[in-house]
């Protein structure tokens, strides 16, 4: 069994630790901050198949949805606040409706269960939707967790399986043997440099993975993409599913650097309604853009008119870790033996975490992976650069 250091105690790091520890590896999770202190605590906890077009990411998402179901069974749905609530994607124009239906047809061919919803049936799903929407598609597979609770629960389970979690540990680099294989991870703890012996290192540092991978000596291009989430006052259950406009689909795959917003509206157990999801490439700038917030509010009111009179309670900012080709980086780095990446999930880190963790555990344990791993390989950047 291998000694594995997982860098990052966010959702993806926790999922890696969970799978690796179940395999019997000697796992140490290190993080400079607390559990889920980065992007994990900044999202809605989306577990989506609906927003993904047929391809490797959808394959990973479909596997993850199944794994989340199993995790919820094992650890308790309440512990994670897991809700298989389903997603309703609505179009705001006839044109987008056509594009959405076509998108859904391709998804269905790739194994996604989805049901077209006629305008007259929308209110059956969401009674408070605007009455003039031309139609949508319902995805029963979409789920939700409370991301920090889910992260804490997976780490807790990993600890029961023998993993150690250490906070306040900043990774400085790795030491390698003469054959180029990882020997130890060099860290700073309370101002002192310490080494943690390791056969393998998993870079699960999310938005900060670009920096950490460079420190390790195996750089991968992960960059921040800013997003805001608006939180309303607590309300009775007024939004039943994840409801979003079809524009979201095109935004996720977009390469544009400027602002993109398409609204995602959903209720939480606490009663608040969350409104996402803007995407901007502005570096690590945490300033709130009130112009963006206004656009998001207007889009939310467009599909849920009752929100007009609902109070905004807070706005929070997060940074999604994105790769130039919008695919996560999962797998062994061919430059340094024993270095693995599990990062760059953009806005889908919560959803894709269990399948990512499973893939890393399979690779470390030398098994074949459930979902083909090649498309996610870090080598796509290595050979690109060469």
């Amino acid at each position: 069994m291998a000694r594995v250091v997982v860098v990052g105690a966010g959702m993806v790091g926790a999922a890696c630790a969970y799978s690796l520890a179940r395999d019997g590896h000697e796992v140490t999770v290190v993080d400079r901050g607390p559990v889920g202190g980065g992007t994990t605590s900044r999202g809605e906890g989306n577990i989506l198949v609906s927003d993904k077009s047929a391809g490797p990411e959808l394959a990973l998402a479909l596997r993850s949805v199944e794994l989340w179901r199993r995790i919820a069974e094992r650890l308790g749905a309440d512990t994670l606040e897991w809700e298989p609530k389903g997603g309703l994607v609505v179009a705001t124009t006839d044109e987008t409706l056509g594009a959405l239906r076509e998108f859904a047809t391709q998804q269905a061919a790739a194994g996604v269960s989805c049901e077209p919803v006629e305008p007259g049936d929308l209110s059956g799903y969401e009674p408070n939707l605007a009455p003039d929407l031309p139609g949508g598609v319902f995805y029963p597979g979409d789920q939700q967790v409370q991301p920090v609770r889910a992260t804490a629960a997976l780490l807790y389970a990993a600890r029961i399986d023998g993993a150690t979690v250490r906070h306040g540990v900043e990774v400085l680099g790795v030491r390698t043997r003469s054959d180029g294989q990882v020997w130890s991870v060099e860290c700073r703890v309370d101002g002192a440099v310490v080494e943690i012996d390791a056969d393998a290192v998993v870079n699960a540092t999310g938005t900060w993975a670009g920096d950490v991978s460079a420190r390790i000596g195996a750089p991968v291009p992960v960059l921040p993409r800013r997003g805001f989430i608006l939180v309303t006052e607590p309300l009775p259950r007024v939004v039943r599913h994840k409801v979003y406009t079809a524009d979201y689909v095109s935004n996720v795959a977009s390469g544009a650097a400027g602002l993109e917003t398409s609204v995602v509206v959903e209720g939480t157990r606490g009663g608040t309604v969350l409104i996402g999801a803007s995407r901007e490439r502005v570096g690590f700038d945490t300033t709130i853009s009130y112009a963006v917030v206004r656009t998001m509010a207007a889009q939310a009111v467009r599909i849920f008119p009752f929100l007009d009179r609902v109070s905004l309670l807070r706005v929070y900012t997060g940074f999604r870790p994105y790769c130039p080709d919008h695919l996560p980086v999962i797998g062994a780095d061919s430059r340094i033996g024993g270095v693995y990446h599990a990062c760059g999930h953009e806005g889908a880190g919560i959803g894709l975490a269990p399948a990512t963790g499973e893939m890393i555990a399979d690779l470390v344990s030398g098994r074949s992976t459930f979902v083909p791993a090649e498309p996610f390989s870090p080598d796509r950047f290595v050979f690109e650069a060469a």
Partner: protein
Amino acid sequence: MTISPSERDQVWDVAVIGAGPAGLAATVAAADRGARVAVIDAEPAVGGQFWRHPAPRHEPNRVRDAEIAPYHHSLARYWRLRDRLAQHVAAGRAAHLSRYEVWAVQPAEAGAAEPAPGAAEPAPGAAGSARGSAGSEGGAAGTTSSTFFDVLAIDAATPQRHESMVRARTLVLAPGAFDLQIPFPGWDLPGVLTAGGVQSLIKGHGVLAGKRVVVAGTGPFLLSVGAGLVRRGATVPAIVEAASPASWLRHPGRLFSATSKLAEGAAYANTLTRHGVSILTKWSVLRADGRGRVESVTVAPIDGTGELDPDRARRIPVDVLAVGWGFVPQLELPLALGCATRAGASGLPVTVVDADQRSTVPGVYLAGEVCGVGGAALALVEGEIAGLAAVRAVGATGPAGAARAVSRPDEPEIADMQGDLAMRRRRIRLARRRERLRTFADALAAVYQIPGSWLGALTDDTVVCRCEEVTAGAIREIARDHRAADARTVKLLARPGMGHCQGRICGYAAECVAAHELGTPAAHRPVTRPVAAPLSLGTLAAGWPAAIAPVCRHQSNV
């Protein structure tokens, strides 16, 4: 954002947020010096919490003033500032935007460091004087700020709660503080109020919260509240002070540094003695009880180990319990702008300011309780310093220039020098006074620390976060579960502070409970809240609001 020449008409020299002692002093100081000032405040009348006044009516104000005067302090100063502001408003130099709730502030880059309308080109002498003055430390004094700020506010006087915007070249933030609350069994019963809330009712409306009121907590503010209550005719069975004022003896030097404050305290003590109010020191609240409403409070002495001694507890029948543990600075707006903070004397974060009340963000000045809770006298001084510094930053000429035009039209330099000298003296006096009052405030904070005894009295079934109904037991359980290794994660998992108040009420206590259970020191980090006041999504969706221009059409409701 670049502003075009026509848009420049929309820009004020100074926007002051908050019209309490600090904001009022800043507004008047800046307007006196010729700046165009908008003062934005959520209340109907200027004065803040300290000088809380009822909404102005059309009949002469002084009648109402007289009614509530017995419960106020240094009212002459208040009237002077209020009347001066009214003059500036009448003259079109200032606007008082009353009942406006500021929900956000945002910096925006101006195209160039152009002078704002109304502020004429800085006279060479004026700029030179600012640089040469004491305390300017070669910073923003001579430097014209190149940014401007958008203040987004909701007009609470309109039923639709319209949003408006004020654009200004500099900001003076004086949002004040609110009551720090600490949970204990029964604290959520009706009739358990904050000491500040009880005081507001008396000062603002001459209304008694109850007939038989115990005042508990810590700090000299309890004496002020107790004295107000008995003067108004309430029975105050006891004032329950957790600290031991004997510890004053450890700081004798500081006693003499703020004699007027001591005189104020002595007057309260005198009133309380005359009414036979007993003051229990080193005692605190164990619990409150009642069916549907508070009927009694049980208080107990704090023993040598710092815990409440239930064996010596006393039960006191009350109809209201007023509790005050000090104040929490309102940091939403400074934090939204990126102003740096530090741990204040109470352990809670306060903003960092320099000798000119400048924050770490250029163009943003801070005054009053956000810089560290220190009371109205200190707030007045800080406000005046901030107002003067903001004016120097925008280069308004002020009455030095205006006076020059009249008295020495032929010798502007001499007039400038006279004005400079007076200003320099004033600033030196203000700096000294601030130093003295700050020392006094720090000494008070050192004596009136919140004791840890409340943590022992906090039963598991006591609700800590009232919005989300999170109990102390729920927080402790998550900490004990080892699912979280730090207080921040405990809070994320147990979710206190996620409801309407956004942790404004329970934030301090939740941190203490989590840290105590984990055995780590409580770390009261500044909490960013980008929405400083509630507003509807519809208001937001309506788009960017119109600016209130410095032509003073929008005046206060006075």
